């Protein structure tokens, strides 16, 4: 009985902190509106249309060739078809994770293309660097909606791919990447900066080791 009185008193005390119903309704309206605009049916439509376009491209032998052949490089007349298929892939990716995966795949593709261009001693390597930077930008943006753990994993992969790209290009690209990193918001900028610094240290260590090996090799045997 006394407990009942006490509980009632406590609940009455809690009522002093009740939020204003007008505020609750206004806030709810915001979410109802947003929830309506994010209907999965529209997402499904987007996915279906994009997939159909992709399948149509691939089904035509030219599309499949343009998409997967190593001889279709930036200077090739079929290269724009590859770019179109990639754009379709990007719009078909509906979840943040899928978006990031697609961007990483495209970034890896730019690295592979760069290697082939270098082997061919192509003159379009500078344009390819710009293309790589654009894809990298999209991959970084795709990471913005991921969880911190997934974002960190994505950032590490991007850095690894950048490293591979830098190995097969001229020295102007790292400078551009440094500029891009300077533009990133604070927590991600630090992550990228640290990863690049670590990579540089690792390279210097490797160079040092190689030098030591060489000098040991030169030492006259007694």
């Amino acid at each position: 009985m006394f407990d009942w009185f006490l509980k009632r008193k406590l609940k009455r005390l809690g009522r002093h902190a009740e939020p204003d119903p007008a505020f609750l309704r206004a806030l709810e309206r915001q979410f109802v509106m947003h929830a309506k605009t994010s209907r999965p049916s529209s997402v499904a439509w987007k996915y279906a249309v994009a997939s159909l376009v992709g399948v149509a491209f691939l089904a035509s032998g030219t599309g499949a060739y343009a998409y997967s052949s190593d001889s279709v490089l930036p200077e090739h007349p079929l290269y724009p078809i590859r770019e179109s298929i990639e754009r379709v892939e990007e719009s078909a990716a509906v979840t943040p994770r899928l978006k990031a995966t697609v961007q990483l795949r495209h970034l890896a593709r730019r690295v592979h293309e760069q290697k082939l261009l270098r082997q061919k001693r192509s003159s379009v390597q500078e344009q390819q660097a710009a293309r790589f930077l654009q894809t990298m930008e999209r991959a970084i943006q795709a990471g913005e909606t991921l969880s911190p753990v997934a974002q960190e994993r994505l950032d590490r992969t991007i850095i690894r791919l950048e490293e591979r790209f830098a190995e097969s290009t001229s020295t102007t690209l790292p400078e551009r990447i440094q500029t891009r990193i300077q533009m990133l918001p604070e927590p991600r900028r630090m992550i990228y900066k640290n990863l690049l610094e670590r990579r540089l240290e690792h390279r210097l260590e490797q160079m040092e080791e190689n030098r030591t090996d060489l000098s040991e090799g030169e030492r006259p045997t007694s």
Partner: protein
Amino acid sequence: MDQRDFPQFYRKYVQRIYKFLYYRLGGNTSLAQDLTQDVFLKAFQAFDRYDEKISESSWVYTIARNHLINHLAKTKPQVDLEEIENTNWDHDDWATRAEIRYDEKRLLEAISQLPKQDAMLVRRKYLEGWSYEDIAEMEGRSSGALRVQAHRVLKQLRIALKQP
């Protein structure tokens, strides 16, 4: 989870989250409203990534708690952030603003005399409106143990209120 389910989720937790913030912001209604909006906006943005293994209440409570910590770290660096649950409870800022009655003030004083864990249980359960199951999830205890604890705490409160 599907974002279309968010309005339902919002209706279920908005009062509790608002009260959680209101008490810890010293009864500042407009600030509590702003932070409540921020918390639910964050929850809405992350709703499709919400892991259903975690209970809804623990999830939204954690968002609110972290948001409050960030806010207080900016505005009141002297506040002990580890003690966020007790922040402002021991001051009667909100009670002054809310113009509570004399017997209610006595009740609040009696609650603040309780051991920290007991006081927190009463506040969460009766003033903020969380269920025993919600609190059990937040604290990693069984709801049965909390019910027993609440029974004992109410008894202590009753005794404290009888004293002149």
